[in-house]
């Protein structure tokens, strides 16, 4: 199938599994906004307005993580429960297009939160044109790595219920524990390296730098970009490998 046809397939899945459900059940979007807003509220109360700006960038990352990690249960649901994946396997749509379509659909459910935190960032942080591009790059890195991770986990599930426990757990481990809502410098120096185990640390640092909240030397920024892109590429490659349609 030609590239344009694969792209149409991706957009069809975005419409089918992302736009249509949100149109019919619009309150679902609140789901991914509530937790980041709560964190923002407490940081504002306890740390003051200057620290609250960290929670805006963190909120953006957390909304993307929260919506994209649900690909884990969604892909398993399509494969195990409704078995629509079997219908797409026996069609010219490629595995990568199928996963991309589903992951965009999940991202769509976080779109309201992404818009909210982007606007708040625009209002309360000083962002240059280059900074805006950096924020978009960080958001794309987060979307790619978290979607890939979610899909990888889904391939191991025998029952969707196996996965119910993982989404909230991963959400905390990826969006709230690492230095996403706060600067990495607040962690004890000896433990800072541990933060880099989370793929969200890199894009969060990029956003903190792009919004002028932290001053990162060029070498550090380069490390964040290389680390974030490498992490995303590795996870996407692993997901693409596991997304091979055919079981052995």
């Amino acid at each position: 199938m030609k590239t344009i046809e694969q792209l149409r397939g991706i957009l069809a899945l975005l419409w089918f599994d992302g736009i249509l459900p949100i149109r019919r059940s619009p309150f679902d979007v609140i789901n991914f906004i509530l937790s980041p807003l709560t964190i923002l509220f407490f940081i504002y109360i306890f740390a003051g307005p200057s620290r609250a700006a960290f929670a805006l960038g963190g909120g953006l990352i957390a909304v993307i993580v929260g919506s994209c990690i649900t690909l884990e249960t969604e892909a398993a649901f399509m494969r195990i429960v409704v078995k629509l994946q079997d219908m797409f396997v026996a069609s010219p749509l490629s595995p990568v297009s199928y996963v991309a379509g589903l992951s965009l659909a999940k991202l769509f459910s976080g779109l309201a939160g992404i818009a909210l935190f982007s606007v708040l960032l625009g209002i309360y942080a000083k962002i240059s044109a280059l900074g805006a591009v950096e924020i978009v790059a960080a958001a794309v890195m987060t979307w790619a790595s978290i979607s890939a991770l979610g899909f990888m986990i889904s391939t191991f599930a025998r029952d969707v219920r196996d996965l119910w426990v993982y989404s909230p757990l991963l959400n905390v481990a990826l969006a709230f524990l690492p230095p996403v809502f706060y600067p990495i410098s607040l962690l004890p120096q000896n433990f800072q390296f541990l933060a880099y185990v989370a793929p969200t640390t890199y894009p969060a640092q990029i956003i903190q730098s792009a919004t002028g909240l932290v001053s990162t030397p060029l070498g550090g920024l380069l490390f964040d970009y290389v680390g974030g892109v490498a992490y995303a590429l590795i996870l996407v490659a692993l997901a693409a490998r596991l997304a091979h349609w055919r079981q052995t």
Partner: protein
Amino acid sequence: MHDGRGVLYTEDLRKTYRPDTRALDGISLEVEKGRVFGLLGANGAGKTTFLRIVATQLLPSSGTVRVLGFDAVKEPQLVRRRIAVVPQEGRPLLLQTPFEHVVTYLVSRGLTYGDARRQADTTLGALNLAPYRDTLCANLSGGLRQRVLIAMAMSSDAELLLLDEPTIGLDPIARIDVWNLIRKYVADGRTILLTTHYMDEAEQLSDSVAIINKGRLVTMGAPSEIKKGLSATHTVIVRTTESATGFERFGKVLRAGTGVRVLTTQEGASDLASFCTEKGYEVTVRQSSLEDVYISEVGHIEDD
């Protein structure tokens, strides 16, 4: 018998799941174009494994599988363009409509949005789903939901349609509706491979059937030919709670459910009916069916 030119051709197809579960054990068969081919077997006989291999969803352990002239193991992309599948116990998403399901499926198969919309309306009309075109699947009955999946697959105009137990759980009217859809589909020269464990369904729908048991092909052919192979023309079903004996002299005795089933000739059936009447057993006499062949063959295999 196999010339390799059929829509589907398999030779010595084997599949063993780890650690040592043999699901298919040397299946060789050929399906001709424009036919409904029924694959019969009990739960766990290997029907779904066979279908998933043909659908390029599962790799065989060994053997040959050619679909529409292409090697399903080495050329899965070429096969996938030409087939469509309705999975066992699949269901549509509840917050979407039948129209949206069919359009999405068609666009994902390469059609433009405009062509997909037109094709979806045509298919939904042909499958009597037009009145439910914009109804959320949450508000459809089980039979209509199943028909949505069949509409998705049939809208693709695939040369080979693979239906895995398409009528499981449906009421008798909904089953007949699905049967009619299947007949219409093959009338245009397309082919359907159908798995089922409903014998009446296989007998009503299939031009050819294959019975598999424990991964092995037991018998294959047109239902009428298979029945001829029985040598018995009549089946006598005797319902008795006693451990009844003495039926062997009338024909082949099969234990089935709460009674005894005797495959015999017309004359034998008459003699057995008289014998049972004397003994006070409840008895039913009818012509032998595919179900009798199935019980006879599968029972025989199990006795081995």
